[in-house]
């Protein structure tokens, strides 16, 4: 159990990247339209986020500096501000969507209107950030989020044609009636979600919250190597469920109830209970991750005192900025906008945020002033350069693809 708790940071971070409300729906949409044909994108994304999260965790453990401090220090105020603006908008839009997501999950459980749950959800997120210890929040949401494994169980219970599923994954083709451009739009969206920058902001800041040092490097590696592959596994399981049940019936996924449909079909009410707990924990965890990331990025750029290891009074601007973010999120939701749609739009800002986040991480992970003997090895650097190119291509392609396809419509 203690070992499991030691990797809660990695699990919670990965939940925010792979199975938050936007990804839950996107994964099901992808499965219902393209089968397992985008499996490779998830795998590429898992390797990429492992690579850079591990670098950011290592920099934090060795030098005590979190990722946005490094971004400002290395890129200067201008490029740093461009990244802050883009990353902050992604954070804000995602946290808005997650609060909506918590409300949707509560609606599945209680049939009470999501509008009524939203203020409750936002208050819940705030009170946890205000009062709970960091270790408590990551352990509870990380562990409960694991109940999403019910999606993987459902795949087995549904007894699919495995050779067909694996065939789709190994030989990706664009399914009939779908456009190649739409396929690539979802490829970029899945990759962007896997590599979304708030994961490294949260992971590196979490490392500081947990007071990691050089001695924690092994722990950092385990966190990364368990957390993110698990996240990728869950997202593939969701896509597989949709492939097996929704694709043959041509059901278009537009809401959360369709995402859970295959699980209910496979395991009935008990499975439904598990999946609701899982979605609740995942969306709540992602809401915590993005709200804290908003506070972390702002504080680190401007040099404010931050961290949950301090009393709120000792990190006043950090806490005030998060309260404001939550209020803005609630305000946006009050207009009745679809939470899932918000996360889809936020991908656009990744075009700026992704390169400007991962370049400085790669550079500082090579800086002996910060890292001493723990600088990157050759293999890490070679992979890092390859991913920097992939990130750049995906970033440049994201906006035109989104416009051409009308966000995958």
């Amino acid at each position, binding site marked *: 159990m203690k070992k499991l708790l030691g990797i809660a940071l990695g699990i919670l971070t990965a939940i925010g990247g792979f199975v938050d409300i936007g990804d839950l729906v996107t994964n099901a949409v992808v499965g219902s339209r393209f089968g397992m044909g985008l499996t490779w994108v998830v795998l590429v994304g898992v390797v990429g986020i492992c690579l850079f999260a591990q670098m950011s965790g290592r920099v934090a453990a060795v030098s005590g500096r979190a990722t946005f401090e490094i971004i400002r220090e*290395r*890129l*200067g105020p201008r490029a740093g501000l461009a990244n802050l603006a883009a990353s902050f908008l992604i954070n804000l839009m995602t946290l808005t969507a997650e609060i909506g997501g918590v409300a949707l999950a509560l609606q599945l459980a209680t049939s009470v209107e999501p509008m009524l749950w939203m203020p409750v959800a936002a208050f819940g997120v705030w009170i946890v950030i205000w009062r709970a210890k960091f270790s408590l929040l990551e352990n509870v949401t990380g562990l409960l989020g694991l109940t999403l494994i019910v999606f993987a169980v459902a795949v087995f219970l549904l007894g699919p044609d495995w050779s067909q599923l694996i065939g789709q994954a190994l030989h990706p083709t664009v399914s009939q009636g779908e456009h190649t451009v739409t396929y690539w739009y979802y490829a970029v969206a899945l990759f962007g979600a896997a590599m979304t920058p708030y994961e490294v902001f949260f992971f590196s800041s979490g490392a500081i919250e947990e007071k990691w040092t050089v001695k924690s490097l092994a722990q950092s590696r385990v966190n990364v190597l368990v957390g993110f592959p698990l996240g990728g596994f869950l997202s593939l399981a969701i896509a597989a469920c949709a492939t097996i049940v929704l694709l043959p019936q041509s059901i278009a996924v537009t809401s959360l109830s369709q995402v859970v449909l295959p699980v209910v079909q496979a395991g009935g009410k008990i499975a439904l209970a598990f999946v609701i707990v899982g979605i609740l924990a995942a969306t709540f965890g992602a809401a915590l991750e993005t709200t804290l990331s908003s506070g972390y990025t702002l504080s680190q750029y401007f040099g404010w005192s931050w961290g949950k290891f301090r009393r709120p009074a000792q990190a006043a601007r950090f806490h005030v900025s998060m309260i404001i973010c939550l209020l803005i999120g609630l305000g946006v939701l009050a207009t009745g906008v679809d939470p899932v749609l918000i996360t889809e739009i936020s991908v656009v800002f990744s075009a700026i945020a992704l390169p400007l986040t991962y370049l400085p991480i*790669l*550079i*500082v992970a*090579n*800086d*002996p*002033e910060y890292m*001493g003997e723990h*600088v*990157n090895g*050759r293999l890490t*650097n*070679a992979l*890092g*350069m390859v991913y920097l190119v992939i990130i750049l291509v995906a970033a440049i392609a994201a906006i035109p693809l989104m416009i051409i396809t009308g966000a995958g419509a």
Partner: protein
Amino acid sequence: MILNDLLGLDVFDDHGERVGSVLDARFVIDGRPGQTLAEARLDGLVISPHSRHSYLGYERMDMNSPAIINALLRWMHRGTFYVRWEAVQRITEHDVHLRNGYRRFDARLSAAPGTTS
């Protein structure tokens, strides 16, 4: 004055020819002793002929990987040199002028002063 006003200014030699722009200002902590640190004295300016963009830390000799990024930045800042304060003849709001017969030095930093090793 604010040091940042100096950074990025165009630099001219005494013939009025542009030789680059101010990339960085190098200080040495050897002035009058203070409570803990001595005063930081402006020792000179790092001047880059081709680029105003930051060197991103690669001006240090111990910083050289990833190789591609290192090569790219060294190329962007090829011909970068260092002049000492004595070589500065005049500073205006828009540019810096160097004295007749000013001397160019190697601008690279030998080691990271932040590390104790």
